[in-house]
């Protein structure tokens, strides 16, 4: 008999640059252990997941991360009083800092569990600190440096050669071939995501990613590598395939073991023609393609819920190789009443 639980999930923006919410929910709905009622947490009224009633049982708007932890706590307390939440899975990089700050408090006051990285882990893997992270954990990372002003551009050419990668604080990256392009991308990214901007050495090769789950004690519960087969103009995978790459899995295990990573994560690598791996980025939550891991036999979101509830979880072991995912877009027809309800009442 399955255990009945209520899980709140954010990242319902199942758009062309999708959040991980809907894939996480699909994996949870397929759990062999849990009968899951899903509460959607949204920031925008047009997040498609709000209207996917076959997956999301009830939704609530929550305050933007900039509103701070008091507003978030107040809203979560209200939602908990209605829904009796057991677990929350936040899926946005930008909201994680607030949720991490209140993790212990909502466990103690409301009895809601989360399974998030520690503040130290979160900071250590930040784009701006990734080079040092690689050195500390024995993983190759392209050399990178923070930039706070376009006045620094002339000096960066002494440390980097063109092309170089210009990355935003949270999202987006561009390849710049000259100083003008660096300045353009600096302005574009800093206006959108704030400072600092990260300049990274450009490494040529093919991109391979790993979705993984660490138990916080140094054990990798699961690590599934994937190569993107079709990439959108936003650099997102629209199709991908699981790989038989023990070296990549070993690197992921090493990162988790060495950092004692707690929670879901995505590791992004470049594999060079010489078969050398460079770690480009660590995202501190599941990727939007995490449902592929469930399709390969590793239901990582279900395992995360078990860890959050303090249940014992053993590493998964082998996964299915050569499984593909292919995304598609789908037009939902939505009654204006529903849009009105989420827009005015903040609940649907």
């Amino acid at each position, binding site marked *: 008999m399955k255990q009945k639980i209520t899980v709140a999930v954010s990242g319902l923006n199942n758009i062309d640059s999708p959040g991980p919410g809907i894939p996480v929910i699909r994996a949870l709905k397929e759990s062999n252990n849990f009968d899951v009622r899903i509460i959607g947490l949204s920031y925008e009224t047009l997040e498609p997941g709000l209207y996917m009633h076959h997956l999301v049982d009830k939704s609530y708007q929550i305050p933007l991360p900039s509103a701070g932890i008091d507003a978030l706590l107040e809203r979560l307390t209200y939602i908990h009083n209605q829904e009796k939440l057991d677990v929350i899975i936040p899926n946005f990089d930008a909201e994680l800092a607030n949720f991490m700050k209140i993790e212990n408090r909502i466990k103690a006051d409301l009895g809601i569990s989360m399974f998030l990285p520690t503040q130290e882990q979160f900071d250590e893997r930040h784009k701006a600190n990734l080079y040092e992270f690689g050195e500390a954990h024995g993983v190759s990372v392209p050399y990178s440096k923070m930039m706070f002003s376009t006045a620094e551009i002339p000096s960066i050419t002494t440390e980097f050669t063109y092309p170089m990668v210009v990355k935003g604080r949270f999202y987006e990256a561009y390849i710049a071939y000259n100083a003008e392009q660096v300045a353009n991308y600096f302005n574009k990214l800093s206006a959108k995501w704030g400072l600092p901007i990260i300049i990274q050495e450009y490494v040529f090769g*093919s991109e*391979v990613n790993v979705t993984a789950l660490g138990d916080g004690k140094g054990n990798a519960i699961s690590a599934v590598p*994937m*190569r993107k*087969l079709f990439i959108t103009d936003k650099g997102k995978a629209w199709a*991908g*395939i699981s*790989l*038989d*790459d023990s070296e990549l899995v070993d690197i992921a295990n090493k990162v988790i073991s060495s950092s004692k990573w707690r929670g879901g994560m995505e590791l992004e690598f470049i594999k060079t023609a010489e078969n050398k791996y460079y770690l480009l980025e660590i995202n501190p939550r599941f990727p939007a393609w995490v449902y592929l891991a469930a399709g390969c036999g590793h239901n990582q979101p279900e395992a995360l819920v078990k860890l959050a509830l303090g249940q014992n979880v053993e590493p998964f072991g082998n996964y299915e*190789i*050569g499984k593909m995912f292919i995304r598609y877009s789908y037009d939902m027809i939505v009654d204006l009443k529903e849009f009105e309800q989420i827009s005015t009442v903040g609940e649907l």
Partner: protein
Amino acid sequence: MKIKKNVAISESGFIFNPTTGDSFSTNPIGLEIIRMLKDEKSKDEIRKAILGKYITDESTFEKDYYDFVMMLVNNQVGDDSE
């Protein structure tokens, strides 16, 4: 030249390299050659088999075999360390 152990080859000539995620398709003669390579047949054995079965000459076989093998190596399906 050896075909990598984990490379999957189907009856239809569909080839999947699970390490890189790449997939290819080949025609029946290509499939025959890949199977012989997978069975660790030597180039001489493959030459004899192809020349005995198809109407072609040695120099055409040499050129096409070299092209095909290089394609397998470049796409990481084959390993030419031997």
